């Protein structure tokens, strides 16, 4: 692939955003970060997203609002992976229903995160 895959990190904590930016930026991806629902949807609309890393708790709402807005506007990231601090079965089920390819409990070991997202992107 000539162009770097676009990764959108939807996360409201600056420390985690910075870490993800380094991790994906240094491993051949183009990275955007946003922590507010509207901002995330705007970026996804203007710059097609290959991989959306979606935190479920955001500054002004939750990840499900992002998924609903994207769906309402017909915006489809190639792969959506939910990163969450909560692994209750009902949350995992809701994420899968809303189109997430995987739901991972933070912090995901970086090797696992890179290999899993690479495999999901390759398969999409």
């Amino acid at each position, binding site marked *: 692939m000539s162009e770097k895959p676009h990764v959108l990190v939807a996360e409201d904590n600056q420390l985690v955003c910075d870490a993800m930016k380094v991790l994906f930026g240094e491993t051949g991806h183009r990275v955007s970060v946003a922590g507010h629902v509207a901002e995330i949807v705007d970026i996804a609309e203007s710059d097609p997203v290959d991989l959306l890393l979606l935190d479920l708790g955001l500054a002004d709402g939750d990840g499900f609002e992002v998924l609903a807005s994207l769906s309402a506007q017909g915006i489809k990231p190639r792969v959506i992976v939910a990163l969450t601090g909560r692994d209750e079965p*009902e949350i995992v089920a809701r994420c899968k229903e809303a189109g997430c390819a995987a739901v991972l409990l933070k912090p995901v070991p970086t090797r696992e995160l890179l290999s899993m997202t690479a495999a999901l992107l390759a398969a999409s």
Partner: protein
Amino acid sequence: MPRLDQSAPVTLSQNVPADTRSTSVEAQLRQALDRIAELEARDTLKTQFLANISHDLRTPLTAVITHAEILRDGILGPLSDRQIDSISGIISGGRQLLEQVGEILTYARGAANQLTITWTQFQLTDVLAQLTALNESLASKKGVRLEAELPDDLDLVTADREKIAHIVGNLLGNAIDFTPNGGRVWVRASKCKGPHGEECIVEVGDTGIGIDGSHHELVFREFAQVDSSASRQHHGTGLGLTIARKLAELHGGRIWLESELGQGSRFYFTIPYPS
């Protein structure tokens, strides 16, 4: 909220004239009930605080561990072996802290009755074998022999796989932790007749330091380690057995132990089979 004088004991005074005693007793009873209500409200707040704080602690820990793994994996350039060892120490410490935060969160959710069970049918011996394998390196580091004695023909259980694994993980972790070098830890499972029908019984035993009979109930209470010398040597949240009991009871099962000081311990829990 008015400040509560927690040092003042709530007692019903006997040294009052007979004609005023009933009014006084009623007043004291009302006061005691008010105090109980206030303490319960405070307990709920404490539980909510624990749940919130443990959830919030995960986020900065995520950043710490992720940055350390980026460095360890050479994503920002190669490191020397000594640098990698040092960074691996940061990662191990971070993950250990994360596990402890996770235990506090599970405890808080349990105390607030926010834990739910996802029922599935599965082979319990698979889970026990998996957990034995996972704990193998911890046991061998301590010089403890870890054995699983699992039957081939155990019926499938109906339970929450992750939560059952959590119970066994906590029991195994404790057994290894409290068993000195040269000792033995084992896991067994069998089907038997319980007070309300057939059940699967899991035993996690050890040849460790043992627990005096007077402490058998205490060990299941939150934040408990039976003596201060034990808590100095064995680190942890002190919530492992409280959580194990909560999770076993959520399944309709029981949990208990047989032990004497210096004679090792055998912890048991049951998972009822659907009747």
